């Protein structure tokens, strides 16, 4: 029974991390910066969702409003900060990224106060499949994860806008020669990222219905580890990076759950970062030859 519940926990946290690490990989490929802000955007999305949902609006509209607000914040940050910093050396963008993340967290502490808020439960109960009781949150998480990832992959692979986005991320200079409108493309990309982050926040809050301004930070960092393991910086084209990022995020979820249940809860963070450092040191040569010694 404990093995079974472990598998369900793996599914749940893996799906959430996979969504976030996909968003990280997309931002990295398009803007060339590792974004530390995504965890804070998730927290913001959960707050917006909780505000509207406990205010009495239906589940779907609360989720849509959370998506819209996440998309707006992401678009604002990407166009105002990441895009102008593309022409500078990479560490400028990194410093800006971690600065925004702290700025945003402190703003949220100021606005929402550090007290935790309880969210009205969204999904509850059990479903029996082959006489095995499964929590509805696990099912919903996995289902939404599948829909979003399949939709995202098809969007980048088969629609015209998705193809244009991948073209721009591949070679921005020659895309400008062909008069591709960069702003509308970055708007569409941030729409996708906003939906991914809001969905991750919604799924997280359906499993753990308490929110405070520090909730997203830890998830964001672990998802970043997932994105790195999934080849951030090595695979720099958009439809190709999608499955790898998902796999990386999912594997972080699995590692975290196993470490939590077989070692201890406090050791899970340590195990994840240890794996990251070992992975980076082993693959140092790859990064060196692909990106000149730096993860771009």
């Amino acid at each position, binding site marked *: 029974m404990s093995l079974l519940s472990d598998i369900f926990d793996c599914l749940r946290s893996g799906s959430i991390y996979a969504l976030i690490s996909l968003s990280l990989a997309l931002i990295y490929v398009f803007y060339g910066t*590792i974004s530390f802000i995504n965890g804070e955007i998730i927290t913001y999305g959960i707050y917006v969702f909780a505000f509207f949902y406990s205010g009495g609006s239906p589940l779907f509209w609360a989720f849509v409003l959370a998506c819209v607000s996440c998309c707006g914040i992401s678009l604002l940050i990407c166009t*105002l*900060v990441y895009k*102008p*910093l593309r022409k*500078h*050396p*990479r*560490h*400028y963008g*990194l*410093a*800006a990224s*971690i*600065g*925004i993340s*702290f*700025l945003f967290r*402190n*703003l949220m502490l*100021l606005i929402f106060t550090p007290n935790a808020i309880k969210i009205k439960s969204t999904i509850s109960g059990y479903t029996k499949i082959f006489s095995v009781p499964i929590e509805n949150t696990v099912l919903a998480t996995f289902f939404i994860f599948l829909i979003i990832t399949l939709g995202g992959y098809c969007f980048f692979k088969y629609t015209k806008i998705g193809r244009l986005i991948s073209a721009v991320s591949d070679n921005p200079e020659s895309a400008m020669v062909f008069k591709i409108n960069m702003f509308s493309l970055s708007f569409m990309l941030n729409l996708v990222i906003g939906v991914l982050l809001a969905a991750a926040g919604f799924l997280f809050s359906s499993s753990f219905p308490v929110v405070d301004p520090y909730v997203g930070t830890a998830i964001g*960092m672990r998802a*970043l580890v997932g994105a*790195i393991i999934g080849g951030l*910086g090595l695979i720099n084209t958009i439809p190709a990076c999608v499955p790898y990022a998902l796999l990386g995020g999912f594997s972080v979820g699995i590692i975290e759950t196993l470490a939590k249940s077989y070692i201890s809860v406090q050791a899970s963070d340590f195990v994840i*970062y240890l794996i*990251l*450092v070992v992975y*980076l*040191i082993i693959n*140092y040569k790859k*990064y060196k030859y692909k*990106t*000149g*010694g*730096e*993860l*771009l």
Partner: protein
Amino acid sequence: MRKFFSSKGFLLTVFVYVVFLICRCAGFLDLYFQEILNLALINVILVVSLNVATGFVGQLTLAHSGFMAIGAYLSVLATRYLTFWGDFRFVIALIVAGLFSALLAFLVSIPAMRVPKSFLLVVTLGFNEIIRNLIINLAGSSGIRGIPYYSNFYVIFFVAVLVIFLVYLLLNSKYGMACICISQDEKLAKSCGINSFYYKIAVFVFAAFFAGVSGGLYAHAVTIILPDMFTYEYSLELLAMVVIGGLGNLPGSVFAALVLTFAQYYFGFVRECKFILYMLIMIIVLVFDPRGIVFLIKSMFSRRKKIKNNKNEQGEKIDIA
């Protein structure tokens, strides 16, 4: 070196020192101002040494306050248990603190410099927390009280001038040029035969040495140290000062450290929402002019004037259609 002694900065330093002495003897300065000035000068040491690693070579590190913590605790131990040499033991304590944190930085940097640049940030952040937790476990979270007051204005001023002088020498040598080349384009630097791995480690160790020294100064100026003084948020504050002063801009970082520390202690609202203000200014500086806030303000005013006079930078007339 002759260039340094005839430069504007050196003359300004001497002028400030003399003015301070006169003001102090005449009794213009209250005790609060003197204490804040000491803290501001310690911040100058930290920010200038961090600027070498972050601004000139482009290694974003967040472990600076961790090295500072090591320096503070070790120097306190040294002044407590070295019974001979009278007050000269403080100098020994500072050197021991600096050397030990430099050694630790060297040990950390061998794996840390192999990690890609972006993740150096996370690795050093983790290292800072490891140091803090180790100190809590070894020395207790209540910290150390009753430390003798050794670091007066003269000592701190001397160390600050020493750091600035060393960084100035470094910048105007061929090693400084190599550092700047690495920060701008590492591939190009390697193709010119610059061993970037060696430079990165050397600069990291240099920064950590002065972080340790300033930790010792800090401990003997405040006379109380707690492990919670040295969180990674303090490192981030220092990083913000570096960026606001300008990445790779030596006078800028001195200016930023002095102004921001004084603003923090003299205006309550700055201390209340310190991170919001610092980060906001830091992002504005990074996006609009990464050379520093002084250049940003200057370019803002000069652009307005230029458009008024229809002249470009060389003073030639331009037509505005």
